């Protein structure tokens, strides 16, 4: 958007949208008029013939470019028609335009979906941008003087003349603490991310960002009687059924991810309620039994009678794929887990599918993560620190991690006996994770560390906490932190949208229907984790719908081979090159001696811990980012992936 009304270059816009062709390979469109230039790469899913973009309203006073889906578009369309709106297409895109005409910027509160869009309001000379509530779809922007440049991915912004490509050390610092940068900051200087649940209005070179929705976990800790519990279970299942139903709306076939866990098995079971055609399901399996869940996947597949296909992933494939994965994540990662999902989306696409439903979001909103359980035990123990029995519950943590299970009780107690500064009590649940991750910053170079200082007040997150946060139960606070930061910043992006869209695959997430999220956020805490049973209410809902073995198994988080995949011959050459002392010194982010010692530890086959793995993956992915986006962008830095 140009503040002075100048015409944007059509050629530049074409180049930018070409950069995002993986997000929408079916069709591209560009619209330029004084004050604005819009471009769109289309993944055709609804109204294949009529849904081209950028799209305008009847008198061309409004133009939209939109990535995503509005799942309640049929109901909204009907209401708008009754109010006299005339539709030229059957698309959900046009529904947003008419809804904007009707409701103005409040239109977003009526949408049930996943979106990033920009509407050019010609008469007001105003650009209105919005991103969905939970942050399923990405939206970035930057300024060149008073001109706003925006796009679904940062790589497109870098093609606009005058946009600098420099790492933001503070953004990197956040990734090496929280696993993600905290919006609006990204790991690139001057490039901003519109936070989930926010809209932005830009007029005459000035932007106003405004939240329209916020997750608020306000469930109480009271006891729930049996009748009330049944009532909650029924309501949750009804909501999930409807959330799944509207996510099947597409003019192309919809498939499903089936991980072998409770969440995706349940969403798959719900899809089966609505489809008479055979359902295609897809999963990742691993050669390494430590990570593999294929026995459960096959059980679910047999029970639900789906046509199932799995991609069996090796450490070598992960190592070989990582450069391309980082090209798509546009931020460092600390675990290799996005790589197998990148390979999975390729299989989905090669099978002719471009839409999949997955179980993402259940762990955050219904209390499935280990971090919730760990915090609950730590709190319980802290209440009576001299109790001999309470710390024995620590044995219940991380049953799938041999190195924790093989510890003596004395050491287990020592590991989880984490003192939290009273000033940081708001982050009780997350301090262990953040402190562990921040240890990785010891690999930063002296100059990087000097520039960053040693602030550990978690100010970026403190600043964004809702006013009522301190009154919420600790369990709810932990859920909020996961939903607000890790979910959009890592799970839905590096492990979600970015690696799925790398192969033009769209994920849809019934658990992240805002009605389900709002319902879950008000549930009594005991229905999320009953004693130490995670996702208690969801397990109850799933009774009879999925195999008992899947329903009652303990949660095994999705993990993949880590550092070993980067020492595999398939990756070793680029890893050794990017981590060579000369390269490390030149790029200036890490300390060459420390990196060399870390690599040496891997090379000589020493016992490798969580921190070692995270360090290596974090350093390699940061170096890949620098290589691809800073040093070689003009020469298509993705060359390593070739």
């Amino acid at each position, binding site marked *: 958007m140009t503040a002075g009304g100048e015409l944007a270059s059509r050629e530049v816009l074409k180049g930018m949208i070409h950069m995002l062709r993986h997000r929408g390979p079916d069709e591209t469109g560009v619209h330029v008029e004084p004050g604005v230039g819009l471009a769109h790469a289309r993944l055709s899913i609804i109204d294949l013939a009529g849904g081209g973009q950028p799209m305008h309203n009847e008198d061309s006073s409004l133009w939209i470019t939109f990535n995503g889906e509005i799942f309640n578009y049929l109901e909204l369309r009907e209401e708008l028609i009754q109010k006299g709106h005339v539709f030229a297409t059957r698309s959900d895109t046009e529904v947003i335009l008419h809804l904007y005409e009707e409701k103005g910027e409040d239109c977003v509160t009526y949408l049930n979906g996943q979106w990033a869009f920009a509407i050019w309001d010609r008469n007001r000379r105003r650009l209105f941008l919005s991103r969905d509530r939970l942050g399923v779809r990405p939206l970035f922007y930057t300024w060149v003087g008073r001109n706003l440049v925006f796009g679904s991915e940062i790589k497109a912004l870098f093609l606009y003349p005058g946009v600098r490509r420099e790492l933001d050390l503070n953004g990197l610092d956040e990734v090496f603490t929280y696993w993600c940068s905290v919006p609006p900051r990204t790991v690139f200087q001057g490039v901003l991310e519109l936070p989930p649940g926010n809209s932005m209005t830009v007029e005459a070179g000035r932007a106003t960002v405004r939240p329209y929705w916020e997750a608020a976990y306000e469930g109480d800790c009271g006891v729930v009687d049996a009748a009330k519990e049944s009532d909650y279970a029924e309501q949750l299942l009804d909501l999930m059924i409807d959330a799944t139903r509207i996510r099947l709306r597409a003019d192309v076939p919809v498939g499903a991810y089936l991980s072998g866990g409770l969440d995706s098995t349940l969403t798959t079971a719900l899809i089966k309620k609505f489809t008479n055609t055979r359902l295609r399901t897809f999963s990742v399996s691993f050669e390494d039994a430590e990570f593999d869940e294929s026995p459960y996947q096959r059980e679910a597949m047999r029970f639900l009678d789906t046509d199932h296909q799995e991609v069996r992933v090796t450490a070598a494939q992960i190592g070989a794929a990582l450069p391309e994965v980082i090209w798509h994540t546009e931020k460092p990662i600390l675990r290799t887990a996005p790589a197998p999902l990148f390979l999975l989306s390729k299989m989905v696409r090669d099978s002719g599918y471009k839409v999949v439903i997955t179980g993402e979001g259940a762990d955050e909103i219904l209390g499935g993560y280990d971090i919730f359980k760990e915090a609950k035990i730590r709190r319980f123990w802290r209440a009576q620190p001299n109790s001999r029995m309470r710390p024995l519950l620590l044995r219940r943590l991380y049953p799938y991690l041999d190195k924790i299970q093989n510890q003596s009780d*004395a050491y287990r107690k020592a*590991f989880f006996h984490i003192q939290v500064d009273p000033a940081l009590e708001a982050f009780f649940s997350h301090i262990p994770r953040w402190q562990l991750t921040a240890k990785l910053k010891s690999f930063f170079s002296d100059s990087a560390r000097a520039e960053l200082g040693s602030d550990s007040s978690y100010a970026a997150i403190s600043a964004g906490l809702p006013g009522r946060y301190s009154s919420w139960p600790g369990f709810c606070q932990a859920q909020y932190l996961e939903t607000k930061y890790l979910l959009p910043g890592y799970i839905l992006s590096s492990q979600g949208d970015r690696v799925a869209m790398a192969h033009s695959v769209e994920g849809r997430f019934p658990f992240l229907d805002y009605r389900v999220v709002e319902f879950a956020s008000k549930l009594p805490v005991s229905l999320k984790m009953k004693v130490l049973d995670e996702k208690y209410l969801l397990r109850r809902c799933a009774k009879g719908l999925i195999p008992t073995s899947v329903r009652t198994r303990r949660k095994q988080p999705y993990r993949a081979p880590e550092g070993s995949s980067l020492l595999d011959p398939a990756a070793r050459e680029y890893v050794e090159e990017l981590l060579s002392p000369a390269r490390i010194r030149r790029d200036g982010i890490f*300390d060459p001696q420390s990196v060399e010692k870390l690599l040496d530890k891997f090379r000589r086959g*020493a016992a490798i811990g969580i921190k070692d793995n995270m360090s290596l993956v974090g350093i390699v992915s940061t170096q890949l980012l620098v290589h691809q986006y800073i040093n070689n962008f003009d020469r298509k830095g993705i060359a390593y992936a070739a």
Partner: protein
Amino acid sequence: MPLNQELRQFVTDNFLFGKNNASLADHDSFLDKGIIDSTGVLELVAFLDERYGIHVQDHDLVPDNLDSIDNLARFVSSKLPRN
């Protein structure tokens, strides 16, 4: 190489990756300083076995024996055959 120095070298190379050597006092707790995680304990145990032939028993797997350079040195000395 004196025992304390040898233990320090191992900890520095394997857990600190060459950094902070000077800032780690012999009495500093590895746990409090966030130097050792669950794998680190197993690494230490493997090192004591390989380097000194000490087979660490389960009841010896406690921070009092392993959680600082001083503690380690005391533990190793107590297990090594006396001349």
